[in-house]
């Protein structure tokens, strides 16, 4: 890649939902970047705003949600970056970006395909929407795409319906559709959550191979740290609509700085960790975004919380390097404090 500018740079994104019960700040000031050719994983518990962040990129936030602040700079080529938040979500420019430059794969592969049309119909439709191909050429390309994602006998499969395929096969089809027009970025929104474990592994392998083959970037959303370890170049940890920590995959796994990251890592079950031990959990639940705690959103569940500080003022944003930052008062002096504190479970 010739230039250093990131492919996608989200800066201070705020997506709020204006419901009758009040405003829900689902995404509240998220900043992250996706470098060219890299895989960035967004991790966090359910309800922390990962999916809304992903959908905001493509302008797919449903009513009553709205992007109210922030920039999403998209720079696929050498030209000026486009701010995706300024595009009309129903307009032609956004339509061409969707599926053409940025593609998305969803959580439920079965439900993401219309049962009324063959998969070939939906695949060819996408190809012809974005590439100037005739019917026959598009069909050939569709067969080629299906073969590329590892679907056996692709010519026959073109005429199959989604309900005739397994979940794993459907997800492969979704990936084929997503990659049909050679997008520069693939957003995968928990693409393996609904699949069984062996299928998960195969889909992850497929995504990694395809990424290596095409050189595209991947924004991968998951709550599964095992997947993160396998696929990520960089990791973004989210909690309640904010990014609490950012860093390279090794830094995050070996030198977590935020207590939340630490706690997440502590709650991964490990082989050989010793029989009879309880798995560490993070106490409490993610509060609903509509009643976010004051100060640091994590403080009610944080073992290292400092009374009078964490529950009063917003945590500072501390930058350690170009792609490494954390939002926690514990690192306010700039010194390396990491490792001094642990959650209960890990000490055991």
């Amino acid at each position, binding site marked *: 890649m010739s230039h250093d500018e990131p492919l996608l740079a989200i800066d201070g994104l705020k997506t709020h*939902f204006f419901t009758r019960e009040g405003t829900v700040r689902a995404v509240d000031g998220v900043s992250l970047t996706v470098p060219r050719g890299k895989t960035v994983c967004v991790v966090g518990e*359910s*309800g922390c705003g990962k*999916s809304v962040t992903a959908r905001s990129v493509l302008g797919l936030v449903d009513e009553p949600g709205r992007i109210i602040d922030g920039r999403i700079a998209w720079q696929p080529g050498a030209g000026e970056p486009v701010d995706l938040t300024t595009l009309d979500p129903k307009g032609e420019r956004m339509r061409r970006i969707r599926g053409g430059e940025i593609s998305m794969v969803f959580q439920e592969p079965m439900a993401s395909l219309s049962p009324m049309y063959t998969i070939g119909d939906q695949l060819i439709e996408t190809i012809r929407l974005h590439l100037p191909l005739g019917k026959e050429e598009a069909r050939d390309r569709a067969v080629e795409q299906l073969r590329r994602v590892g679907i056996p006998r692709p010519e026959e499969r073109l005429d199959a319906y989604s309900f005739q395929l397994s979940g794993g096969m459907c997800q492969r089809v979704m990936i084929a559709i997503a990659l049909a027009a050679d997008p520069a970025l693939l957003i995968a929104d928990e693409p393996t959550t609904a699949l069984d474990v062996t299928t998960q592994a195969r889909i992850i392998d497929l995504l990694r191979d395809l990424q290596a083959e095409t050189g595209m970037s991947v924004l991968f959303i998951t*709550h599964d740290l095992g997947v993160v370890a396998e696929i990520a170049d960089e990791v973004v940890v989210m909690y309640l609509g904010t990014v609490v920590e950012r860093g390279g995959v090794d830094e995050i796994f070996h030198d977590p700085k935020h207590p939340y990251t630490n706690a997440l890592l502590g709650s991964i079950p490990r082989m050989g960790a010793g029989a009879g031990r309880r798995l560490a959990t993070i106490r409490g639940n993610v509060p*609903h975004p509509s009643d976010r705690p004051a100060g640091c959103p994590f403080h009610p569940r944080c073992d290292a919380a400092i009374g009078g500080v964490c529950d009063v003022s917003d945590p500072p944003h501390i930058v350690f390097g170009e792609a490494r930052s954390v939002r926690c008062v514990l690192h306010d002096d700039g010194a390396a404090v990491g490792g001094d504190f642990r959650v209960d479970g890990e000490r055991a």
Partner: protein
Amino acid sequence: MAHTTAGTDAATATDSGPATDTDAGTDSVTGGETAARGDDRWSSASQRRLVWWKFRQHKLAMAGLVVTGLVYLIALFADVIAPFGTSTFDAEYTYAPPQRIHVDWGEGLYVHGYTSTVDEETLQLSFEIDETQRIELGLFVKGEEYELFGLIPWDRHLIGPVDPDEPMYLMGGTRTGHDLFSRIVHGTRVSMTIGLVGVAMAFVLGVVLGGVSGYFGGRTDMAIQRLVEFFMSLPSIPLWLGLAAALPPGWGPMQRYFAITTILAVIAWTDLARVVRGRFLSLRNEEFVTAALLDGCSRPRVIFRHMLPSFSSHLIASVTLSIPAMILAETSLSFLGLGLQAPAVSWGVLLQDAQNVRVLSTAPWLMLPGLCVIITVLALNFVGDGLRDAADPYKR
């Protein structure tokens, strides 16, 4: 799981909670990492409460509830509200036009009397409102005696002429010289109860057959489904007509009433059976049912304590929606002369008088019972719709 202690509020704790799930439903609830969250008022309320809160937001449904309540009150107190009994008539006043109630602050309520003229050729009576005559009206006046609720003898009527022999036709007179207003009020009884009684019968049939079908599945389900499909594929009115025509002509009003209600119920149960079956089928595979079974609950207990409460509100909604259909069916049957017959009074029976244009053009008020049907059916439909929307208070 919370469901093992079931009851009406069983589903409250584990469903994703009443507050909006802003991740647009894409972040699935994995392994209990998310549980009841949000404010306590919602999460601690019983399901019945939640349904009521949701229902109250539905303005049309609330209006419908008020109207329905009023109509049933009228049915209950028909004897008091109607100025005259069902058998009182005065042949001198056939097709008498409706009178307007006037208020005189000194003397109270009054209506004007009639002067009638007979057409020399056709011998038809025609009426003029005579402004010079005043017929004094009173509230809770003495009139015909009746027994309130069939028990308490009384003779007061909500409104009526002070002198019971004076003519009062607030909604006009019928072909026989009955007071239409009184007849409509009395007809409320039959028209409104036929819905309730019929639906009660259909409910028992529908719930039992639908429940059996949905719970046991397999061959039983197959057989019952064929039966339901058979009943649904029949055009109901010809069938009703056929059955109603076969009723012995010698039967009294009571026997006819129950026979007609039964005929209506025999065909109306299919809808309820389908609803119940569908719910049972979808619930059968729910985890809380499996959990209850694993906990050693007996089958009846699983059905009645765990499954039934979780869709009782849907059931109530379907029942409410089938009452108006029943009322319409009775009205149609009676209108055609094959349902209830005079001396029984129902809105449909009253509409029999309004069969042809010539009568309608001289006495358009004979369509008023139809208006009552429309208002009542609309109100019940609104209530049913509101209930259906509120039945699932966790969904939005």
